[in-house]
């Protein structure tokens, strides 16, 4: 009933509050407040359990000093409700008639320390300091939890928005409410964004880890033999459609071959590509048999149909156009190889049809 009076002792409104004292003994309370304030902490004293818990709820104290025999509810009750409502607050119990039983009971219910009255000011401050440290740790832990569970938080925020929105529609048109709403909205966006970024990073890391596991499987096939480098690179080229740098570095380490040497080989052979290739590769044969039967015209036709020149990949990374010197199908000259299928000089119409069907396919066709 006189809660407001006692709460009046509250000096500072900065929150969260550093220390809350709940003790029926007004003199003791006042002394403690003075001592603690002198060390530049924010502190509030309350003389009844109800008043104390009310303060705790609004100003989230970091350390709560509780008299074991507070009027209006004994210390144990207070500890229980604190644990429920303010789980990060660090409770400290004080008592005039300290017994071992009481101390054990208090500790069991989460008290961080147990002080016997009279409490000397050094001891009090020391306890408060340690209590505050612990509270920071607890907050951090809780924060970390909240962050890893950002999606939950995001949901919560959305719920909050709903509630506020409801309140707003009910006619509570306070500017404060609107501000709160914008604030929460921004907060929600921020979290969603960082969640997205975290997820993205996670994906990249996971992808790389999978890539390297795949490369390791290839290397294992060749017993990690140095002289199998070209075979390994061929397999990598086949699965990844190019030779990404992180993989070459990995191979360099695994086979103990200088990266320079790997690049020399990758540049020397036609089969390797140091830039991503399209999902589909179109090889136009310009071998002799195909050349005398007009392969250059075939090449122009394909290149104009696709809109890319030989050696290029389109910007959607669908198709890579390449020339090749004989694919051993000379009797059908001029020959075009699209993925694993061979075609005899496809006309523009045929090409367009093939390209269309390939674009529709999600996965590469798996022909023999």
């Amino acid at each position, binding site marked *: 009933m006189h809660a407001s009076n006692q709460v009046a002792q509250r000096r500072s409104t900065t929150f969260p509050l550093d220390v809350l004292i709940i003790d029926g003994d007004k003199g003791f309370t006042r002394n403690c407040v003075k001592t603690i304030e002198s060390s530049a902490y924010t502190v509030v004293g309350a003389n009844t359990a109800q008043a104390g818990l009310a303060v705790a709820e609004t100003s989230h104290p970091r350390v709560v000093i509780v008299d074991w025999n507070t009027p209006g509810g004994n210390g144990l009750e207070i500890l229980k409700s604190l644990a429920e409502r303010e789980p990060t607050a660090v409770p400290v119990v004080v008592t005039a008639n300290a017994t071992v039983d009481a101390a054990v009971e208090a500790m069991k219910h989460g008290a961080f320390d147990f002080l016997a009255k009279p409490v000397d000011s050094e001891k009090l401050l020391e306890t408060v300091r340690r209590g505050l440290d612990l509270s920071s740790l607890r907050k951090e832990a809780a924060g970390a939890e909240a962050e890893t569970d950002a999606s939950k938080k995001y949901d919560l925020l959305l719920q909050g928005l709903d509630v506020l929105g409801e309140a707003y529609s009910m006619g509570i048109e306070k500017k404060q409410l609107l501000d709160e709403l914008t604030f929460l909205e921004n907060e929600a966006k921020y979290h969603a964004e960082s969640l997205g970024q975290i997820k993205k990073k996670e994906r990249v890391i996971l992808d790389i880890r999978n890539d390297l596991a795949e490369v390791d499987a290839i290397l294992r096939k060749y017993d990690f033999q140095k*002289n199998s480098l070209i075979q390994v690179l*061929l397999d990598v080229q086949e699965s990844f459609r190019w030779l990404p740098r992180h993989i070459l570095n990995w191979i360099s380490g695994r086979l103990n071959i200088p990266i320079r040497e790997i690049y*020399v080989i990758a540049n*020397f*052979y036609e089969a390797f590509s140091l830039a991503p290739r399209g999902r589909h590769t179109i090889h136009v044969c310009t071998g002799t048999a195909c050349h005398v039967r007009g392969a*250059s*015209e075939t090449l122009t036709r394909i290149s104009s149909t696709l809109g890319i020149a030989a050696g290029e990949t389109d910007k959607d990374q669908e198709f890579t156009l390449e020339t090749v010197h004989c694919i051993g199908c000379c009797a*059908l*000259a001029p020959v075009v190889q699209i993925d694993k299928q061979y*075609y005899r000089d496809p006309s523009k119409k045929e090409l367009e049809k093939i390209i269309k069907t390939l674009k529709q396919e999600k996965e590469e066709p798996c022909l023999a």
Partner: protein
Amino acid sequence: MSRLKKPADLKKLKKEAVARRGAKKTWLAVCTGTGCRAYGAEPLADSFEGEIARRGIADTVGVRRTGCHGFCERGPLVVIQPEDTCYLGAKPKNVPDIIDRLTTGEGNVEKLLYLDEANGERLSRLEQIPFYKHQKRILLENNVLIDPSDILDYIAVGGYSALAKVLAGMAPEDVLKEVTDANLRGRGGGGFPAGWKWETTRDAPEEPKYVIVNADEGDPGAYMDRSILEGNPHSVLEGLIIGAYTIGASQGFIYVRQEYPLARKHAERALDQAREYGLLGRNILGTDFSFDVKIHRGAGAFVSGESSALMCAIEGHVGEPRPKYIHTSEKGLWGKPSCLNNVETWANVPHIINHGAEWFGRMGTEKSKGTKIFSLVGKVKNTGLVEVPMGITLRDIIFKIGGGVPKGKKFKAVQTGGPSGGVIPESLLDLPVDFDELTKVGSMMGSGGMIVMDENTCMVDTARYYTNFLAHESCGKCVPCREGLRQTLEILNRIAAGRGKEGDLALLEELGEFMEAASLCALGQSAPFPVLSTLKYFRKEYEEHIREKRCAAGVCTELIAYVIDQEKCTACGACFRNCPVDAINKSKDKVFTIIQEKCIKCGACYTACPDKFSAVVKVPATTMQKQSAGAATLHETKA
């Protein structure tokens, strides 16, 4: 059936394999080589199988997916055995008809048989078809008969009997003598006697020794190695195992280019199966001889087919040639004696062992024995793989087997030996084909690419094409090859663009001599041959390019222009739709014209214009420059 424990066990296995094949009365051999696959041979084979199952005749009729039969031009090919009825270009829709005839025994599906244009007669049997009739198929014969992924098929037709014969009682010296007496010469390029090479490696003091199959087949326009490895991989493997036994090698390699995934797959499977039957691996056929083989994929570099470069690549390095003061047969892979032979060379070995050197020597010319497979491609009617005895004339190959030049065009030249070879003009068509004769006329046997060229092939362009290829493929290690090729290419580009100078031809010859003499490996040494041989036989064409700025074949784009004959054009619009750069417009007279300034001379309109109109024509570019009005005045210039 498990491992064969002694050479004699093979006979028993063969009997079983033959019985298994005989269980069905009729076999449909569907070619599923790479060429026929492009025509849709796989779905065709599927529908044969489906139809046979549907009719419940699977007990008597079987489908066998084989490797390349050779007549790639007319695929997909189906041969019905044992009658040897040969169907060309069959489609799934023909399947019920084919099976009908088969079950009722009422004749053949006439329209799928070969049509002899001379007398309008349909020829049903494979050996009647001129393309096959004039061949002598020893290495390719089994391609029509066996499923390459089934070792029992190979054994049924006598496979591995040569190996069994060797292991049952021939000393390595005896095998060596047989191969040397047969005078088997390398089919991969140079024609070096295989026996000598084997002996050098065998006698080299160091151990271990290696044997290697060269299946890099870098020569554009040649694909016989691919077809052997795809269609009959065990024949190569058997030859290799016999070679390893003779030479004393315990490890072998097959170097196959990565552009040939099917060849690799079949070779891999062959290795697995051979191991399973005890024909490869530890204690082959129960003897003391152990030998195994690994497959190494080439990553696409022509020069890596050269012996020292190839071995570098197997070691995992960049495949560049090294100076060969000491041959690879003495110091090759990891510095150890290594015998490298071409696919076709190895595949000959089992036949020599089975039939003897004397039999082998009966085929061919004095110094080139046996048969050779050529890939007959380019401007020839019957493109495909042909196996002929050495000594047959070029004319027989191109006209009797190949059916001559299509579309009534005139034959101009034939190119052999790939980028290291040269062109041979019509006047030399009666030349017997063997290693030495081809070299004499400035070309070479090479790996067996035979590219036929007609009047629409330009010789300057051909030389430029090969030079460009080689300049791209030169590893750049030695100056004569690298710079020689670059300069040669520059001169040829100039000539092709109509900016040739007097004296260019002499310069080309000088450069050629220099490269031939001073290059490190055979790539550089033989690089000038395409230029020198075209210069030798077609000098006039070069001179026309230089003096008259004219490309008679209509190939060198900067010397020609495309125009539309306004009188022939029916305004169908095909050219208009196919032009990639929108250089074609409707003119006042409602027909089409080409805007010369925009034209990139890709020839799309020329191909697109239907044959019955043939309204797009090639004219010398010089006539266009003189006429500012362009197409409208075409008829005046022609007249």
